[in-house]
Each structure stands twice: as structure tokens, then as C-alpha cells.
């Protein structure tokens, strides 16, 4: 496990990558990407047992991560690249013609690190459960992780999957919800309230862990470690992680407006002024 300072340093560079990537093509999803930066940096640099130098689709004896809310591809790509799955330079091809870094992640172009296409929401939990079942059949004790948006929970397939996972004791699986309370049309509470999310997943038979500070590196790691402590105990594990959409860029926080909008030149300069270059831009 890298120390907290190192992880925070990496997170700042990832945030620079995110705003630069979406600015370069005037499209993409910076808000959720910035909000989940600390989670993905922590996951891939200390929590996940994975091999970034020799990617295989099956990931035998490796922990596997599935991004279900595929629109936050900028943070996913940046973290994968900076873990060594592919050259950091490739981030500049994001959303451009002939790129492996499609608007939403895909296996179609064989980008190392990606094991399923996502973008159409609500499908990743089922896929993660399937991968978890395969691990069990293969007597592979690795852990399956997934990340979902809170708005994504409005998709019915999520609840089909949630029902299945507990009924079948899929206990080698940790799902995390990016609970930022915002979606394209506004606040989740107003668009379609999720009600008491913790109570819902508990009623569905899940072990629920709450990470109150999803943009605090130490809290994120502690949340994941606590979630891991419930592995193998007969229940799927849900990590409800509160985050701030747009975290790290002051004018992108406190609103849903940066869900799927890119900054202009002036806004980019302002954002980068708040995110000091640490490991070198791509």
C-alpha cells in the first residue's frame, strides 16, 4: 500500500488528466470522474490485487474491477494508464477517431484493463456477479469489485442482480455506489428518489458498509478495508460511498451541471490552477 501522501499526489494528477481530456474534445463527463478519483486511485494502488503489466481477460488469481457507470471513463482511463496498463500518452486520444479510449469503455478495441463494455447503465452488477461465480467455480479466492452511479440504481436490472447476489450468497463481491446525489437532470432526490438506500440493500440481504467521506483518501481506504473484512461471510457487500460530484475543482462542485459538460479554455485554466501538476501531464 502506497502511503496516503503518494495516493493524494497521484489523485491530483489524475484530476488534471480528467479536465484536460474532456477539454481537449469538448465532451465527456468530468463531474462523476472527479468525484470517483479518490476511490479509483485507492482501489488500483493498494486494494486491488492485479497485474497491470500482463493484462489477461480472464485475470486468473487477480481481483477484478468492473466499471458499471461507464460515462466516468476519463478517471478510469487515467488511473489505468498511470498504473501501467497502457501508455499515459494514449490519454490524448480520448474520444478521438481510431482511439482505444472510446467515449464509454469497451473491450472492442482491446484496451488493457477493460473487461466489459459499459455505458448503457445498470448492467455491470450482473456482469460482476457472473465473474464472481466464475471465480468460485475456478476455486480462485480473488475478489470482484464494481462501481455504480447512484442515478444508475434507477435501472431495474440492478435490483434483479441485487436479489440474485444475496439469494445465492455471492460473498466474494464488493459493489460500491458513487453516492453523489446528482444526475443529468438534477438532484437524484428530485429526479427519482432512492429513499433509504442502506435500508434497501440491507432488506435485499446485503452487508452494507458506509463510506461517509468518499473524497478523503484515508476514509476511502478504510471503507474498502472494512468491506473486505466481510468477504466470505455469506453476503454480497455494498459500499455506499458519499462523494462530491466535481470534487477538486471548486466551480464544478455543488451542482449537477458538470455531469456531462467539458470546460472551455478559461475554465480549464482555472481548474488546472487548483490542481498542481505532480507526476507530469501526458
Amino acid at each position, binding site marked *: 500500500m502506497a502511503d496516503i501522501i503518494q495516493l493524494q499526489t497521484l489523485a491530483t494528477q489524475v484530476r488534471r488528466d480528467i479536465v484536460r481530456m474532456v477539454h481537449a474534445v469538448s465532451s465527456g463527463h468530468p463531474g462523476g470522474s472527479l468525484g470517483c478519483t479518490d476511490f479509483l486511485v485507492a482501489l488500483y494502488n493498494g486494494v486491488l490485487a492485479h497485474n497491470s503489466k500482463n493484462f489477461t481477460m480472464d485475470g486468473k488469481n487477480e481481483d477484478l474491477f468492473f466499471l458499471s457507470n461507464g460515462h466516468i471513463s476519463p478517471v478510469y482511463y487515467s488511473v489505468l494508464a498511470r498504473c501501467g496498463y497502457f501508455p499515459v500518452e494514449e490519454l490524448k486520444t480520448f474520444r478521438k477517431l481510431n482511439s482505444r479510449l472510446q467515449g464509454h469503455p469497451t473491450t472492442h478495441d482491446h484496451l488493457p484493463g477493460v473487461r*466489459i463494455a459499459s455505458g*448503457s447503465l445498470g448492467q455491470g452488477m450482473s*456482469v460482476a*456477479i*457472473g465473474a464472481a461465480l*466464475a471465480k468460485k467455480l475456478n476455486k480462485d479466492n480473488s475478489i470482484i469489485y464494481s462501481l455504480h452511479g447512484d442515478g444508475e440504481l434507477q435501472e431495474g436490472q440492478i435490483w434483479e*442482480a441485487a436479489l*440474485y447476489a444475496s439469494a445465492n450468497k455471492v460473498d466474494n463481491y464488493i459493489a460500491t455506489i458513487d453516492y453523489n446525489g446528482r444526475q443529468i437532470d438534477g438532484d437524484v432526490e428530485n429526479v427519482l428518489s432512492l429513499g433509504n438506500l442502506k435500508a434497501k440493500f440491507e432488506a435485499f440481504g446485503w452487508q452494507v458498509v458506509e463510506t461517509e467521506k468518499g473524497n478523503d483518501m484515508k476514509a476511502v481506504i478504510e471503507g474498502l478495508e472494512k468491506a473486505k473484512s466481510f468477504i466470505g461471510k455469506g453476503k454480497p457487500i455494498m459500499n455506499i460511498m458519499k462523494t462530491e460530484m466535481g470534487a477538486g475543482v471548486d466551480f464544478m462542485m455543488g451542482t449537477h451541471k458538470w455531469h456531462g459538460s467539458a470546460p472551455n479554455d478559461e475554465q480549464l485554466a482555472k481548474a488546472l490552477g487548483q490542481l498542481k501538476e505532480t507526476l507530469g501531464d501526458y
Partner: protein
Amino acid sequence: MKKYTYTEKKDTRSGFGAGLSELGKTNPNVVALCADLIGSLKMDAFKAENPERFFQVGIAEANMIGIAAGLTIGGKIPFTGTFANFSTGRVYDQIRQSVAYSGKNVKICASHAGLTLGEDGATHQILEDIGLMKMLPHMCVINPCDYNQTKAATIAIADYEGPVYLRFGRPTVPNFTPADQKFEIGKAVMLNEGTDVTIIATGHMTWKAIEAGEKLAEMGISAEIINIHTIKPLDNEAILKSIAKTKCVVTAEEHQMNGGLGDSVAQLLSRHTPTPQEFVAVNDSFGESGTPDELMTKYGLDTINIIDAAKKVISRK
């Protein structure tokens, strides 16, 4: 006309069940999933023989497709089982993103396709599934014609790397293909060589094409009969070779005219050799409740419809 006989009528879904059971014994990577239709899909034997490799997912087809996609990550070869309607239309986006676009080795096995599902009516009688599935890039689409061919197809697709849609049905139909006939994905089966008209049939319509060929022979018309079990990839070579000889074609399928086998054949011919073609298929209509035989008659999918189409297309040459 070559003589075809059969000793018994059997349902194609039982061919699937038998093939799956055999795969359970021969291929340890094969796993099966079902959405609360084990008996209807004849998956009982596989389940009993391989309980650890069988997943009952309940009435949740979208979740089933996603779990199947995930199971491939780790080397499993998942066979999903439910009715054709719930295997395609209900879960189209899940198949499109998590299976087809993701290039996952999932075998989507669909029973009760078409009108011959019978009394349950139009909600369950999907006639659009071939079209839906063949439009997906790199999706292999197979619609076998009898028990033996369905069993052989089930076994064959386990060795094929990539997503497959395997379509079969509910009623018993003549089991006439040889039990030891090798199933080659993408290869047409020549049932009868003829010179006046080519009849291309898939699924349950294949036996009716044979019956039509016998009747046409009595009228002095020599029909070449080709069974297309693989609608995608289509055996272009076999079709073009036959058309070069007969100069006209009838396609027969238990499916909408729009988007079916006939469409695929027409597209091939219009690009290579524009040829008169008649379509025996459902013409832009939903089905309804009734016995399979009554429905096939009402919606124009009988032997007589193939005979009439053959005579008509010959007159258009």
C-alpha cells in the same frame, strides 16, 4: 425427388436438452443458466448431472444475460435458456452491450420461437428474433430444423468462439436428419438437387419444404431444396451456386418477412445475381392463440404456401 422418411416426431427443444447434457459430460467449461423455464427448455438433465454448473436466475432475463457475460471472464462457456421472446426482445440492450459489443462467448439458447408456440398467443410468439439478432455485429444466428440437427448444433456451438443465438421450438416435428450428421456452422445442407426452382428453408419450415418438393415433383417441377440452419453467417456460395442453375428462389421461415432469412437471401442476390424471389413468411403481423397447425395455416406457413410460391416464382423467370 429424394425420399425422406422419419421414424418419430420430436421437439427441437429436446434436441437442445440432449445436446446440453452431452456437453456437460464432455466440456467442463460449459455452464448453463435458466430463467425459470427449466422444464420447457429441457435443461433438467444438465441441471441434475451438473448442479454446480447450473444457475437458476429466476424471472430476471436481463440479469441472466449479464451474469452469462461475466461468467465468460474466467473461461466459462455459458448457455442461457428461456423463451425466444425473452431471449432477444426483452434483453436486446444487455445482449448488445454486455455480450455482442463486448465480444463475449455466450450462447443464447431460445425455445418456443415463432407461431408454433401456439395457444399462449402473440405476447410469446416472437417473429422478429432472427432479425434482431442478425443485425448485431458478429452475432452468429442458427435455427435448426429437427431434433437431431438441434442436438448437433448445441454441441457444435460450444467449440465456436463468440456469441451465438440458437433458436428452436416447442412442437414435435419430423426428426429426419441423420443422427450422425456433422453440424457445420455456416454450411447449407443440400436436401434435394433440382433444376426448376430453389427452395431455401430454415427451422420448422424445412420439413414442409420437403413435402412441397414431393408434391411439386408429382406436378413435374424439379425443386432444389436447401436447408439453411445458419442464417448468419449465410452460406453465400451454396445459394449462388443453386440460383445459377434454377434462376429463381423461394425462402421459407417461421418469422416475419422483414428481417428474416428471406431478407438475407434477397440482399445477397440483389448484390450478386438479381433473381426472382418469393417469401413464405409472416407478413407484417402479430400472431394469436390457436394450435400450431391452425396458426401455420392461417398465417400462410403451410406446405401449400411453398408450393404456390414455387409455381409463382417459376412464372416470373
